[in-house]
């Protein structure tokens, strides 16, 4: 039923594909700008340089920019051993075990989940490996971590909410101002952002959140949610979208429905495209939450620790500002040093 020649063809094709895949893998391993995989020499092959393990939580743009910032922050002073948990809690725990088995001089954790992250912190403490947290500080006992460089998502949400409340107040009038929310995935950072936003928005009593659904950090999903939102709330005035990628999906839906002039988008991020959309008037506002800076400052904190210098403040909270047309030129770069 399946001729010998076809089997031979199959074997040749699979061999060619495997060779190509290996070639691609080899090619990418020399890419020092690389966004993924192990970024430097593997497994303790760092000679005299200290070895820093980095457990990255995901492969999305934000995480890859944290990785780039970390590499830039460490420079040539340390070897970086990076693994990626790909949003998998189980993989994160395994990655922690694997990296700690290599006895790194320090460990940086961009966690997927608070529980699995706590396990890794405990294990690193047991192995006397200093741990640094990036983006999220989830450890209640500060003595367990050597340092953390984080965003305060609640404070960021409050800044956006405060900005909108100010807009509403400045516009005057006592009519109801309708606000929609397209959030990220529930149960994570987006919840803090939304909670902070709602709290600050209370300063404008006539502003009311009339729609709130998750876009799951996915542009296509966010576009679909926005289509439904417009149907359910045709008189909507503003929409908060938890990140810029989803905000572009929401914008597409608003444009398709002819509502892009009516519904103003507030979002969070600060990518080059997001800033351009603010300057072009497609977004009313965004923020400059730079993951590169998170990684960069974490790298510097690690080097300080390895050099025996203790940080004045083990937990650094990066300031985030609301970016509008007026101050877009001064926004922190999303994925670069400046």
């Amino acid at each position, binding site marked *: 039923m399946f001729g010998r020649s076809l089997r031979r063809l199959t074997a040749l094709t699979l061999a060619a594909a495997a060779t190509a895949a290996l070639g691609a893998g080899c090619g990418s391993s020399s890419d020092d700008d690389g966004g*993924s995989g192990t970024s430097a020499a593997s497994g303790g092959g760092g000679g005299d340089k200290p070895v820093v393990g980095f457990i990255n939580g995901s492969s999305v743009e934000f995480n890859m920019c944290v990785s780039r910032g970390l590499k830039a922050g460490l420079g040539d002073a340390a070897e970086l051993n990076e693994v990626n948990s790909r949003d998998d809690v189980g993989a994160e725990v395994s990655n922690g075990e694997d990296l700690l088995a290599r006895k790194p001089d320090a460990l940086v954790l961009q966690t997927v989940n608070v529980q699995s992250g706590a396990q890794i912190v405990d294990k690193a403490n047991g192995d006397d490996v200093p741990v640094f947290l990036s983006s999220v500080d989830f450890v209640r006992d500060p003595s367990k971590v050597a340092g953390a460089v984080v965003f305060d998502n609640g404070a960021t949400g409050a800044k956006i909410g405060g900005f909108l409340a100010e807009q509403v107040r400045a516009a005057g009038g006592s009519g109801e101002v309708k606000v929609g929310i397209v959030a990220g995935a529930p149960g994570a950072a987006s919840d803090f952002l939304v909670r902070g936003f709602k709290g600050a928005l209370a300063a404008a009593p006539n502003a009311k959140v009339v729609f709130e659904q998750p876009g799951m950090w996915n*542009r296509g999903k966010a576009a679909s949610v926005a289509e439904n939102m417009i149907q*359910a709330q045709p008189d909507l005035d503003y929409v908060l979208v938890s990140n810029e990628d989803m905000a572009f999906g929401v914008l597409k839906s608003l444009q398709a429905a002819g509502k892009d002039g009516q519904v103003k988008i507030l979002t969070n991020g600060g990518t080059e495209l997001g800033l351009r959309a603010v300057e072009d008037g497609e977004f009313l506002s965004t923020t400059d939450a730079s993951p590169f800076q998170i990684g960069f400052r974490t790298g510097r904190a690690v080097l300080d620790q390895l050099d025996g210098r203790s940080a004045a403040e083990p937990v650094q909270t990066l300031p985030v500002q609301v970016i509008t047309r007026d101050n877009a030129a001064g926004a922190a770069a999303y994925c670069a040093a400046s």
Partner: protein
Amino acid sequence: MSAVDSLPAAAGDRPRGPLALLRRLGPTGSHVAALALVLVVVVVVASLLSETFLTTDNLLNVTRQVAVLGILAGATTLLMVSGGIDLSIGACASLCGVIAAKLLNGDASATVAVLAVVGIGMGVGLLNGLAIVASGAPPLILTLGTMSILEGFSQATTNAETIPVGNFGWLGAATLLGIPMPAVVAGVVLLACGLLLRYTRLGRDALAIGGNEHASFVAGIGIGRVKIALYVIAGALAALAGLVLVSRVGAASPMGGVGLELQAVAAVVIGGASLAGGRGSVAGTVLGVVLLGVITNVLNLLNVQTYYQSVATGAVIAIAVMSGQAGTRWRSDRGAGH
């Protein structure tokens, strides 16, 4: 309806009235009829709960939102009736979208980009088909591996960043006679899949292989060729889905199609296909896709909290599958009993 289900009743043994109708429907038809009943109930309840639901704009939104899933579900139907499955179609859609974006942002015309990525999708399908046929490996596991490979390539190609695409909105944003173009494309694809299953030798062979592979071999069906052809078609449709997704949201995300493969499997199974092969219909798949889309849409319109959306969606899926099975059993107990 599948060819297997449409075998004529023996002469002289033809019941009249509802029983005759049931017999003509066959087991898959009975499942589809029961599922249609569930969909009608959902639509009626939705229209009572939301004034917006039955508006033309909203129904067109639903068709736009389920289009990509519909294309992938069409591909999955063809594979599942033959006893196969392809978990890599979501990742293939992402990769094809990314490659299309790269081509379109270069100097390639839309025609070249479309032809190129459909060719790439067919190539991926060919590799899947050859590997499955030559090795005899379970397609579930083998295509899980392919999925991981394709996701890795997508992220490596883009550095995990979303790539904006301009001037490619016609496939995702345009309309034809007022119907969204993605829905038109999905409709044509599903119609073609239905015709292929019912009226072509390839479709009949696929059903026969899914029903009993050994008997099909004895009957002289070229099992390897049929399976490979089906995986090639699935790859082409995955590429098409990726193009529609890119056009709809105006950007290519390296993870944009991830997760859609499981939704496609869910839609096909809801539609009455057997995971073991040999049974299934495109009509059932269409109902499964529409049911999933309508549930998501109406829960968004009603602004139901995310956690309860999961509960409601799961409950309706369970009811739909059980109703379909009940329809099949009722038919075999009363309509086809001898």
